[in-house]
């Protein structure tokens, strides 16, 4: 056989730092799937690549910024949102995406999450939720379902987990969605919508962690987990976010969909409108008029 066919080029290669491959993620991890969705969303969203920045915190998902061939900045644990806030305010023409995990965004970064939603800073937060601190070996998180086993909750978690879509919606986020790593088409579409949405947008992505969370909780491999997502997900666009909490390791229903899509002036617009009203011609308008 002479013709060993060369491997086809990765269709999203132009968005990846191929010189950094192989990546750090485990086989079966859902992060790569979501990055694939994100790269496709970047292609579709119509935003010039040079005006798009990705900021990550710390953890497995915190490594996403490092593999995307965009202006990408990898900061401290939990603080990607305030970094993104400063970046967006400095140059309102940029599209700024925060891509990080549940521990990073909801635990150590929780205060920044709620305040950015309240301010309606025009950034997109993609929070991958694998229910655990995977990079450090599987400690309990504020998203860990009741009774899930974690290294720092060896007898099972007993704290009530966050309902993050409800949290950010109640703080004023203008776009809130949840999908799983199974819903690649819907997730890609949501990413496009979120990046083009003016204001604070938030996507929770439920994603398998086969090495740590699934194994420790005897939930099978990633394929089993994706099947679980497939069989138990119920799409409820516009769902009452009070009803979308994920409390059990194996809920009967995984409620996914676009929960919130409303209009509200974003931070820079509110600042410009208010200050020009109060200061008149003396106010120096910030950003493009």
């Amino acid at each position: 056989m002479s013709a060993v066919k060369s491997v086809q080029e990765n269709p999203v290669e132009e968005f990846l730092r191929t010189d950094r491959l192989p990546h750090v993620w485990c086989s079966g991890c859902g992060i790569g799937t979501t990055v694939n969705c994100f790269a496709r969303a970047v292609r579709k969203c119509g935003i010039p690549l040079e005006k798009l920045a990705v900021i990550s915190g710390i953890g497995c998902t915190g490594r996403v910024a490092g593999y995307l061939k965009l202006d990408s900045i990898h900061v401290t644990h939990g603080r990607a949102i305030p970094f993104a806030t400063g970046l967006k305010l400095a140059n309102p023409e940029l599209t700024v995406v925060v891509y990080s995990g549940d521990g990073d965004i909801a635990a150590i970064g929780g205060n920044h999450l709620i305040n950015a939603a309240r301010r309606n800073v025009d950034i997109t937060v993609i929070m991958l939720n694998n229910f655990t601190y995977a990079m450090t070996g599987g400690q309990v998180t504020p998203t860990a379902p009741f009774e899930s086993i974690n290294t720092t909750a060896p007898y099972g978690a007993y704290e009530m987990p966050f309902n993050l879509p409800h949290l950010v919606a109640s703080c004023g986020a203008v776009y809130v969605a949840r999908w799983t790593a199974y819903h690649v088409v819907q997730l890609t579409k949501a990413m496009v919508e979120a990046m083009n949405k003016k204001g604070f947008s938030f996507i929770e992505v439920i994603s398998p962690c086969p090495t740590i969370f699934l194994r420790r909780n005897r939930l099978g491999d990633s394929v089993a987990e994706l099947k679980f997502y497939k069989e138990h997900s119920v799409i409820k666009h516009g769902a009452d976010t009070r009803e979308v909490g994920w409390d059990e390791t194996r809920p009967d229903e995984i409620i996914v969909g676009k929960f919130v899509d409303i209009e509200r002036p974003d931070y820079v617009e509110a600042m410009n409108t208010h200050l020009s009203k109060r200061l008149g011609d003396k106010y120096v308008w910030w950003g493009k008029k």
Partner: protein
Amino acid sequence: MAEIRYTTADPKGVLTGVHYMDGNHAACEGALAAGCRFAAGYPITPSTEVVERFSARIPLVGGVFIQMEDEIASSICLQGAVWGGLKAMTVTSGPGISLMQEHIGLAACLETPCVFVNVQRGGPSTGLPTLPGQADMQQCRWGSHGDYEVIALSPSTVQESFDFIIDAFNLAEIYRVPVFFMMDECVGHMTEKLIIPEADKIKVVERRYTTKPPGEYLPYKPDPDLVPEMVKVGDGYRFHVTGLTHDERGYPVINAQAQHEMCWRLVNKINQNAHKIWRYEEEEVEGADVVVLSYGISARVALKAIEMAKEKGIKVGRMRLIVVWPFPEPRVKEIAHKVKAIVVPELNIRGQIAREVERVVEGACKVVRVPHAGGTVHDPEQIFDAIMEAAR
């Protein structure tokens, strides 16, 4: 090597004229004159007036002030603004600067040019919110984990709060480090005459943006002065930077060699250029038996004590640190070989700068500490007694 690009201040930010204001307000005006167009802050006594004024002034100049949810957020929000192309600062005091330490390390590691203003109060913990201290002087050098160097300046007057914060911004741009502006409650709240010059008399350093095209540019390839050129988000470089140990491409490399190269450069870019950064004021050091070495408000209080000692016939000179870090080692060593003693009054108990003097002089002369726990300034008598003791 990228030459240091000087320009003059943007007149929009410069309130030229003669004023009567306190050090905190003057620091704000200095920051605006230096081209600072972004501040993120969180209320904390005795520093808050800086951002209060900034929040009132910046809408008229063009820029952003944001009051963040805490000091941790402020200290990274400002770095986002810097990577977005602005000059930026945050302003705080003891408890706030303690919260900011992780991001001081991030600024050192990403080489984010930025300014941290610390209007020092008494500590530890909540301490003395409304009263002065100078007990954060070692913290600003060592506070974040790991190896890196910073620059710190300390003003003694309202005029210097304006003048030196401009230097702080300029040094941040030249060396791409977090620069500390170490005020204290007295200087911050003291009201005196301030002269703000015309904008074209104020020298401002531009960011060292690269002229290399994307593809050729490497984020952490240093110039011969060990400082790399910068880019900002949105210019098409599609660059990556990380707080992980990284190589010249900005990519994480987790091994001892990368650590060696990165950390040595972060330290050496200040140490090898220290002679260009040192700045101090001297008076009557030649022929003196005793030199009083101090900084900030304590250097000013010491003037009275020096006068009293001179009246007693003691030959007293003085050295005032303007740049505290990097410490002017060779000059202090030189002085030590000429005098009987160096007297170091400061508003902390354990001799935060005195022990640096002791380390540097290596026993060549006596070093007399004049400790004070803070809450007020020294009684000049206390410094006078130390001078008399030293001269014996």
